[in-house]
């Protein structure tokens, strides 16, 4: 079980800001593949991963990052702070 968070238009496409996901995905990329085949809204949100960023346990990382021991994964578009 892992907490998956969505922000900005990723959140809007998925339809929820946060959910607990039952998964054995080894990496972020594996988790994305699992989600993508579940429902169309996930397929929409993850249609272009080059437009997405990911954080594992609140630290920016890459899509091939391991999920071993991870409690929280977040998907969002490039940040627009400042």
């Amino acid at each position, binding site marked *: 079980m892992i907490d998956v*968070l969505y*922000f*900005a*238009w990723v*959140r809007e496409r998925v339809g929820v800001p946060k959910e607990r996901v039952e998964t054995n995905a080894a990496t972020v990329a594996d988790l994305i593949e699992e989600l993508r085949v579940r429902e169309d809204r996930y397929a929409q949100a993850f249609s272009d991963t080059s437009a997405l960023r990911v*954080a594992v346990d*609140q*630290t*920016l990382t890459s899509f091939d990052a391991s999920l071993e021991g991870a409690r929280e994964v*977040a998907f*969002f*578009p*490039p*940040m*627009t*702070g*400042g």
Partner: protein
Amino acid sequence: MADTRVQEQPFALGAEVDRFAAGAGGAGAIVSFAGVVRDEGGALSGMVIEHYPGMTERALADIADEAERRWSLTDALVIHRYGALGPGEHIMMVATAAPHRADAFQAAEFLMDYLKSRAPFWKKEQGADGDAWVEAKADDEAALTRW
């Protein structure tokens, strides 16, 4: 030690600059930056800023720590708002204090470049044609390469 704040409520720019300057003992140079909601000639009625509670606080503290490692600063301050903001409202500010002006300016620019692209905030602008998420600029990502 840098002070970093993430908050929904407005902040008073001038009062924050005064308080920061008063506390930055020994500094010869104080730089501040404030980001303001533009109205684009009336085309924008405001914006909503979403953020990632928890990660945001960590990111701001990390960015401020890095600035204090790289430059000779006597103090640094970062305040960033989230939630609904109207045109003309202050979105965020940074302030830096240093013995010499080059350090204060460079650290302030560094803080801004990193806040733009590495702090988990997302802006949605509200205009006459509806709402739209602000897209990250290639320029902003490129700006990071100079540090």
